[in-house]
């Protein structure tokens, strides 16, 4: 790949007359030419190699996700060479004396063998598990970046939906993975999953029998989860990741606003050689951090849990952190939500935290771009990112959602919080139950106020410049603090954003008094628009800057070159 790239990028790099290619380059060129004659790949590869990407650390979160996925795939292949997905009954005779002679399933025994008797097996197992953790975390953080910068807006809604599905699939893939070893913890997790399925009204128990091929636990669930974990879900994951990347190329990468960056261009560096080196190096950094973590820190010590037995459970039975929010929801839901009606038992205490929570949470997430687009009525393409403060309501909604998630997440660890902080688990649960409803509201208000304050500060800075701390006495005895104007690069960042006004509600009926069929929907949209945009800090206009400079505050500082600096900066605000 990289040699191809060298060959392709040579004409661009050279400005002057081209030197004669070396014999080695000729040879490589010949081989590549052979391939190009048969595939016609030179053109698309050249296009990709010259593709320009903008630079920012937050754009690398998606890369972390992709690289972690690659690491998980590679190590997963290694594990399949030894793992036996079977509930078959065997006696353990391996090297871990803590389980010597204990009866267990082949799945658990082979996991122990990978950990203790396969060379490097434990390290690979831990790399596999940690890389999966990094994958899911990076997908989540990447999604946060996309959300708070508004990168999901047209034309990238499809990619947002794909990303949402990827996040859900990643969680499912992780669950299927840690359920495979058939240790006490994973069996408990599968038991909880069975409860989720059974809580579906009417069809629940039939569905559970279908999934487990009979009563829990049966012998079918491990092979079935295995095929889902190593074939079905990974295939969909890889396919969707590919589609995700193609769409990034097609729609181009977004960029943060800045001098010279517009909705029509992409300012950055080409893939070859800059990003090929940077991203290639970053792969090894990611792999290195995962390997280091795996070498130093145990994850899922299956040998400690012992084989699964449906009659047993251990304290600290929790899912991996990415399923924690669902476990937390179960811990928060009060028991009286399970009741019988008309001869049927309705387990809302389970159903609300699982078969309702998961579709609703991921559904809302996937639908958000469309909801926001409906409210704003914005049909334009957006390639420039928003600074989170410049979209206060969206940022506040995001923080409220994260707060809601965090409350459920923390609730999953309520027992450990109780011991470690010397508190009562009952009190913690009660507090979190209240916070589940109150927390998001507080987070919404606080975040929105912080965003608005930051915007006001930006406005102040754009209008009056930076406080210099220099007190000036005028001949007529007045004192004022001199403000220094900010340079145009900073200015650009402060004034280049949209602040839509709330939509005005039209009367809803025409001149003859006939009601518009869309009146109701328009009314609703106007209400939402007010919710989003009634608190708005408009960006500074060139006129306002000029006025500020004449009102006596800043006139002393606006001389010569400074005027030009401010003028050109604020000019950009108008576009």
């Amino acid at each position: 790949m990289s040699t191809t790239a060298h060959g392709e990028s040579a004409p661009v790099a050279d400005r002057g007359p081209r030197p004669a290619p070396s014999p080695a380059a000729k040879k490589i060129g010949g081989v590549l030419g052979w391939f190009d004659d048969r595939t016609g790949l030179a053109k698309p590869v050249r296009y990709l190699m010259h593709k320009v990407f903008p630079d920012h650390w937050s754009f690398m979160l998606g890369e972390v996700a992709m690289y972690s996925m690659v690491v998980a795939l590679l190590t997963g292949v290694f594990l399949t060479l030894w793992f036996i997905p079977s509930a078959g009954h065997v006696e353990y005779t391996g090297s871990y004396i803590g389980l010597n002679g204990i009866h267990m399933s082949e799945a658990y025994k082979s996991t122990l063998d990978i950990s203790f008797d396969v060379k490097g097996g434990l390290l690979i197992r831990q790399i596999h598990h940690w890389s999966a953790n990094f994958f899911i975390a990076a997908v989540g953080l990447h999604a946060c970046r996309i959300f708070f910068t508004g990168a999901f807006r047209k034309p990238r809604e499809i990619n947002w939906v794909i990303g949402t599905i990827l996040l859900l699939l990643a969680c499912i893939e992780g669950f299927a993975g840690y359920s495979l070893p058939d240790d006490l913890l994973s069996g408990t997790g599968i038991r909880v999953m069975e409860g989720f399925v059974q809580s579906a009204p009417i069809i629940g128990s039939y569905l559970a029998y279908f999934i487990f091929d009979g009563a829990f636990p049966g012998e079918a669930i491990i092979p079935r989860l295995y095929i889902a974990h190593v074939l079905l879900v990974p295939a969909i994951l890889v396919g969707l990741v590919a589609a995700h990347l193609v769409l990034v190329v097609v729609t181009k990468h977004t960029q943060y606003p800045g001098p010279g960056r517009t909705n029509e261009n992409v300012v950055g560096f080409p893939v070859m050689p800059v990003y090929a080196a940077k991203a290639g190096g970053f792969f090894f950094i990611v792999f290195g951090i995962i390997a280091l973590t795996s070498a130093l820190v145990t994850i899922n010590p299956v040998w400690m849990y012992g084989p699964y037995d449906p009659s047993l459970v251990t304290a600290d039975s929790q899912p991996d952190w990415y399923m924690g929010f669902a476990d937390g929801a179960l811990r928060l839901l009060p028991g009286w939500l399970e009741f019988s009606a008309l001869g049927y038992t309705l387990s809302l205490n389970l159903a609300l935290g699982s078969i309702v929570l998961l579709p609703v949470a991921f559904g809302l997430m996937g639908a958000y771009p469309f909801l926001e687009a409906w409210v704003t009525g914005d049909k334009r393409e957006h390639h420039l990112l928003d600074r989170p403060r410049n979209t206060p309501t969206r940022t506040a909604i995001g923080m409220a959602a994260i707060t809601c998630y965090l409350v459920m997440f923390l609730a999953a660890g309520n027992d450990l919080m109780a011991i470690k902080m010397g508190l009562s688990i009952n009190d913690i649960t009660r507090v979190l139950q209240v916070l589940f409803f109150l927390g998001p509201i507080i987070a919404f208000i606080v975040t929105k106020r912080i965003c608005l304050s930051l915007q006001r500060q930006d406005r102040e800075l754009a209008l009056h410049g930076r406080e210099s701390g220099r007190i000036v006495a005028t001949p007529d005895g007045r004192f004022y603090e001199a403000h220094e104007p900010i340079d145009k690069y900073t200015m650009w960042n402060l004034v280049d954003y949209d602040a839509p006004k709330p939509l005005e509600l039209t009367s809803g009926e025409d001149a003859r008094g006939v009601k518009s069929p869309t009146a109701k929907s328009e009314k609703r949209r106007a209400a939402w628009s007010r919710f989003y945009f009634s608190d708005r800090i408009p960006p500074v206009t060139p006129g306002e800057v000029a006025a500020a400079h004449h009102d006596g505050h800043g006139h002393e500082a606006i001389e010569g070159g400074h005027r030009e600096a401010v003028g050109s900066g604020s000019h950009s605000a108008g576009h």
Partner: protein
Amino acid sequence: MKALAARRRHPAALIALLVVGLITVGGLFAVLSPMQRAQAGAPQVSAQDVEAGKKLFLANCATCHGANGQGTKTGPSLAGVGAASVDFQVGTGRMPLAAPGVQAQRTEPVYFNQTQIDQMAAYVTSLGPGPGIPDEKYASGQGGNIARGGEIFRVNCAMCHNFAGSGGALTRGKYAPPLKDIEGKHIYEAMVTGPQSMPVFNETNLDPEAKRDVIAYLHFLDKNENPGGHALGNFGPVGDGFFFWLIAIPVMLGAAVWLGKKAA
């Protein structure tokens, strides 16, 4: 010897000497300290012991348990709790209770030496028969079947004490304490007497061999180095997630920010 003499003025020599000195003194203290001395076997009880135990009892326990150990509003009757109970509660520093709370906690240091504890145990036994001090043969866990002990532990203990004996939460601030580095005798006594929220595992429920195996398993966990690196306290996935989000993810983000800052 010559090499050693040549390096005697090396800057590190002083530090090395200090380390050797500290280890020697600390080791001697650990060996000779009266607190660490484990008493083997069931103690011989005499009338003098009972008398001395009564004196200790009146001075330290009677406020709550009553002058004759009959119990008061603040403390239960001690008739029939047995020597095992006294040895466990006092020997782990849970009694005398420093302050009323949801649960008596293990405290260090223990305020009584083993002789005094035995005297109090003799007095309490004189109030009514109960479980005695366990036989060292079983309580030491020596020769126990580790794997069988692990199985018994998972069946009977793990739901509260966690799979690795890291402890766990109970309702309203009560908890199952961690079982790391606990003397076998105290584990045995806890099983026989069922202190606080713990159920009693009597000799018909778990025979002495089973108890020995459990102790052997716990001592195996104490000694066994975790094969996969740092165990993060063996608190299950919550511990993993805690480490992951507080250390591993910041490191990863730090790497991204660092590389992002590098001019391309």
